[in-house]
């Protein structure tokens, strides 16, 4: 699988799904990303790990096209995130679940999922299966989001993600605040998405849960990627992404 995951790309191109070169990204005037070099290949499940404040969230937001690099290059799904048009195109094909869930408190679970499905130009038929899959069908469906627990909110956000059918999944601490069922749900969804050909980046401190699905581990420290490890092939530990590329 490890070899296949590196070579097989749905679009036949040999460009990685995410390719960052010396990418610097600013939060205000703070360089949250201080020169990131990273390749994530199509169909990889990459685990981003590193201490708090290492830049994992900013890295995901850069990959989502929500922010642009202030220097360096960032190609995501073949689009240049440095240009406004490229960012716009990237955003349509990624799914980001961050710390905030982007839900409207005053709408019900179903209304939220319906709205975001429509806003993402997803088929309206995807809503019911997504609610089923995330365990929100039935009673919870008609509850206002403001009345949900943190875990239920995340499930709703996952349902939105399912409707979008992104080809690049960006999950920021997806296991946090979820019960065992919820964590299993996340892992199940990740594996299904991988089987469907998607590429997945997970930033997580829940290493036990995250490593069970990850094909690669990427260490983020001080706004940089310092080390990339292919999980199935632990012997190659220490393969710096830059070197692998050369």
């Amino acid at each position, binding site marked *: 699988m490890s070899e296949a995951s590196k070579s097989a790309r749905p679009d036949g191109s040999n460009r990685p799904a995410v390719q960052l070169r010396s990418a*610097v990204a*600013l*939060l*205000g*005037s*703070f*360089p*949250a990303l*201080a*020169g990131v070099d990273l390749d994530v290949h199509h169909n990889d499940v990459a685990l981003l790990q*590193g*201490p708090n404040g*290492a830049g994992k969230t900013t890295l995901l937001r850069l990959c989502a096209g929500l*922010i*642009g690099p*202030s220097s360096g290059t960032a190609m995501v799904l073949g689009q240049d995130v440095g240009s406004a048009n490229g960012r716009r195109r990237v955003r349509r094909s990624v799914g980001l679940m961050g710390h905030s869930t982007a839900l409207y408190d005053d709408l019900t679970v179903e209304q939220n999922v319906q709205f975001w499905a429509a806003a993402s130009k997803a088929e309206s038929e995807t809503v019911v299966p997504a609610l089923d899959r995330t365990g929100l069908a039935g009673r919870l469906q008609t509850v206002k989001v403001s009345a949900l627990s943190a875990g239920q909110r995340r499930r709703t956000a996952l349902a939105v993600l399912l409707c979008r059918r992104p080809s690049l999944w960006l999950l920021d601490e997806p296991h946090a605040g979820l019960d065992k069922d919820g964590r299993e749900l996340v892992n199940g969804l990740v594996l299904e998405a991988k089987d469907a050909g998607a590429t997945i980046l997970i930033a997580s401190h829940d290493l036990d849960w995250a490593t069970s699905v990850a094909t690669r581990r990427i260490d983020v*420290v*001080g*706004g*940089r990627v310092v080390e990339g490890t292919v999980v199935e092939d632990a012997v190659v530990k220490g393969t710096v992404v830059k070197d692998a590329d050369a």
Partner: protein
Amino acid sequence: MTRVTTTQSEDAKSAKSKAPRDAFGTASKLTRVFGVAAFVLTSALLVFALVISPPEVIQGESVRLFYIHVPSAIVSLYLAFSITLVGSIIYLRKKSIFWDLMAGAAAEIGVIFCAITLITGMLWGRPTWGVYWKWDPRLTSTAVSFLLYVGYLAVRKLELPPHVRRQRAAILGIISFANLIIVRYSVQWWRSLHQGTTLDPVDTQLDGSMLFSFFLGMLAMIAIGAWLLVHRFRVAWMEERKAEQSLAAAIVERQSEGRS
């Protein structure tokens, strides 16, 4: 304005490379020309406006305020805010930081001259109309324009990544000029409907030394405006370079996090 004095040889060196010159202050040959011109013109203006030119027939001595009031209005509303408009347009087309900073510097100068216009206008109003504020259309629309550009300056101070802030400021710099025109004409229209024409600070019959004083005032205000503009721009330019340098340092520091 103060600049470390340099010896002849150092001057020769700094003529070759711009860097050391920048390091010493915001003065340049250009600012010295404007500075001297501003000083000479202002001195001449004081003599002509206060001593040589006669009081006006209707307004009396208060006509002398006119020599500052009208020129500062022209510098602010017509020149400074136009530079902001032009700078904003060029920034949007070429993404040139130079023009973004120029637009911002011009707006600050414009706001200051706008304030001078308002203050001198009110001081003129007290002896002429008997009140400081008579909802004169020009003064009223100047007051709104002043606030429009105070808002523009506030947007320039938002905590955003630099390229995002520049983009927003540039769009706002263009829209604000449109607003300025709309405000000006709608306020004029409003006042023209509800009262007969009153004595306006601009409706003044001038001749001879009065006319000459007005021209002197115009030139003096332009020189002061240009002098301040170049200084202000260079401050902004140096801040920009400092930010670049501190960003480079911040990146190095960021990269060394978590290593010991």
